[in-house]
């Protein structure tokens, strides 16, 4: 069974999930571009890393499950991996930024712990 004989409801649902996920990622990137300080900007891409990723992974699972006629859950690996790594990158990057701002005594540096 290929994409040609995917039923209509599945195609519509897959497209809706993928478009919603892409919209979340796009909003996150717009936020990355438009927000002012680094500590505000650091939160914006998390929109794509959580909601956008989850919706697109759900679309992929649904698509391949319906197309192959069995439950295909391998895309959950991507979801699991991103769920584990996103907080780590944000934590390390935030620490690096705080360290740099404090050592340069910038005005917008976070207060010392």
């Amino acid at each position: 069974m290929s994409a040609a004989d995917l039923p209509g409801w599945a195609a519509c649902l897959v497209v809706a999930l993928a478009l919603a996920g892409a919209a979340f990622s796009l909003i996150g990137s717009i936020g990355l571009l438009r927000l002012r300080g680094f500590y505000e900007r650091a939160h914006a891409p998390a929109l794509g890393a959580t909601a956008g990723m989850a919706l697109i992974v759900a679309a992929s699972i649904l698509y391949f499950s319906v197309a192959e006629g069995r439950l295909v859950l391998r895309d959950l690996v991507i979801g699991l991996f991103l769920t584990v790594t996103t907080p780590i990158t944000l934590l390390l990057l935030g620490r690096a930024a705080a360290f740099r701002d404090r050592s340069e005594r910038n005005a917008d540096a976070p207060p010392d712990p």
Partner: protein
Amino acid sequence: MSSPEILAYGLGLAQLMLILAMVLAGWRVLRGPRAQDRVLGLDTVYLNGMLAIVTHGMRTDSGFYFEAALIVGMLGFAATVALAKFLIHGEVIR
């Protein structure tokens, strides 16, 4: 519209949105203003590129793009962690 057309146009539009998101994040990489902003933009480029590859795999009905997406995600994680450590210590491995 038949379901292949819905899939082709809808997933193509989703892919275009993800590529636009990559371009916006790439603009942040180029503009800065500081090194941590560039690293954050690079991480977002990796993330959106990975999602675009997953969407491309759906659009072309091929299961092989899953591995590519996984590897891109792992490379993005490793690159961001290495760059963040570099920003703190001035070297990646002490």
